[in-house]
């Protein structure tokens, strides 16, 4: 029985979380002696689809018909459900991206399957089937036991590594009969945040808070982010005051992220902010106030004036990059 993985694409290319999900599926399949089949919905070239083989997928089911050119949760779910039946799969892996959040619960309801969303590790045992996820907005972990015959896991972005597992991928076009009525949402427009790294997928995030005193001072944050190849983020007060757009707000009521490196500049570290970033692998805090609670969960700290420190950091990053 293959393990299925829904591999999301963007502009015809696999997204980074798709490779994480493929790696996760491959490692799970290895422990249960199964193979991995990827499902791709929407346009993608055969060359791109073959890349699934680099991450351990021996088969790729591709629904590439033009009608799948824009996202449609009901119709996409029906396609995935059809693949589950045709492959007789019992385990389906998603990435907990915005699309994954629209699809995995629908599939779970359709198949009466238990869904663990935002998994941060491989199942600790497969009998019983137990998977760890975060809960209480990253203030805790919970081990979730899934008792249904069909099991669905969506993997938290950046929580699982990507590993090459070269196999040859057999690409198979699929075009199941899907009722016209399931194409029930219409995408009128996609507004891309141009040229920037998506915050949820970024490996490095540079974030600013009220300590930066005003929106006009964000230039140095952006320069440091550019030097590091990082995404930018901000704290809730900063988004609420309109200094930065809401989609940059990380925290309990904003976006939850787990980058490899989170650099917090002028953010004191309120419990709601920490909830959104505490699972970052390495945390750097730069703050003028030595009592800032953020230092308690930081790996590296600098007590000092951001206006002095940050430009020097940018310089040091540029030097490091130019010497390698």
């Amino acid at each position, binding site marked *: 029985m293959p393990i299925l993985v829904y591999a999301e694409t963007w502009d015809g290319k696999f997204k980074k979380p798709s490779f994480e999900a493929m790696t996760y599926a491959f490692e799970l399949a290895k422990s249960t002696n199964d193979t991995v089949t990827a499902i791709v919905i929407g346009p993608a070239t055969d060359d791109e689809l073959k890349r699934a083989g680099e991450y351990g997928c021996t088969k790729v089911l591709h629904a590439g018909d033009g009608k799948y050119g824009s996202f449609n949760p009901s119709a996409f779910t029906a396609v995935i459900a059809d693949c589950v039946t045709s492959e007789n799969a019992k385990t389906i892996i998603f990435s907990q991206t915005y699309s994954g959040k629209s699809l995995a619960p629908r599939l779970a309801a359709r198949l009466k399957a238990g869904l663990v969303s935002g998994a941060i590790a491989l199942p600790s045992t497969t009998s019983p089937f137990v998977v760890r996820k975060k809960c209480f907005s990253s203030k805790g972990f919970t081990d979730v036991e899934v008792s249904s015959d069909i099991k669905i896991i969506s993997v938290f972005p950046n929580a699982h590594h990507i590993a090459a597992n070269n196999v040859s991928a057999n690409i198979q076009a699929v075009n199941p009969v899907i009722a016209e009525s399931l194409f*029930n*949402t219409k995408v009128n427009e996609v507004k891309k945040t141009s040229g920037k790294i998506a915050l949820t997928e970024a490996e490095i995030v540079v974030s600013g808070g009220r300590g930066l005193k005003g929106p006009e001072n964000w230039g140095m944050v952006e320069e440091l982010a550019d030097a590091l190849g990082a995404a930018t983020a901000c704290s809730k007060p900063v988004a609420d005051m309109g200094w930065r757009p809401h989609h940059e707000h990380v925290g309990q009521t904003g976006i939850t992220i787990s980058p490899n490196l989170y650099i917090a500049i002028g953010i004191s570290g309120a419990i709601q902010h920490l909830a959104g970033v505490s699972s970052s692998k390495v945390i750097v805090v730069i703050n003028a106030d030595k009592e800032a609670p953020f230092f308690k969960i930081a790996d590296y700290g600098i007590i000092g004036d951001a206006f002095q420190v940050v430009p020097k950091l940018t310089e040091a990053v540029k030097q490091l990059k130019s010497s390698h």
Partner: protein
Amino acid sequence: MKFLVCISHVPDTTTKITFTPDGKAFNTAGVQFIINPYDEMALTRALELKESLGGTVTVLNVGSAVTEPTLRKALAIGADDAIRINAEPTDALFVAAEIAAIAKNEKYDIIFGGRESIDYNGCQVMTMVAEFLELPSVAIATKLDITGTTATLEREIDGGKEIVSVNLPFVVSAQKDFAEPRIPNMRGIMSARTKPLKVTEPISALKPTTSVAFQTPPPKSECKMISPENPGELIQLLHTEAKII
């Protein structure tokens, strides 16, 4: 218009989370409970739409009697009536099936909820409700407007936004920006006491998942301090010690 808003009863955002000594449950002692913030945004938008288009707003919660003050708060904010399905909300599929069982007979024009509850962070229930009712769903929406029988929404996607249109009826889950929550006024609080709150027993839906253990994150090791005079040292440490740049 007939609107349903599904709300969760969750610990206040400032709560320090602890678990019972056996690690099997969330320790609720001394915890203040609130309407899940995303659900409150959904409720507010439903009320705004009701005010401009006419209609009713019903709030629904799956929970034991301890959640009733949360439902009363939703009534104080402006909902017309409330339903409590008398069951512990331990599994998303179960909760969604219970909500769908109520909603299928009621012909709501829009079923609202938050994008996720801040306790279990599942991001599952609303989308499952849509599938059970065979309705369209728009998840993680930041805007919602209605013209006639069509709604136009803005939703977040990785690296941008999508503008989506959908015909009523449908299910939506709210993300920040959807609406600015309101503080209930004294009149609202007084009238909430007498608004109808109906309690119904659950159908016995499946519960395919169980949280078998809880844990708080391990304490962090000591923070390594670097002199503000020499920030370059930080970059060296991130390169040679943490090996992340």
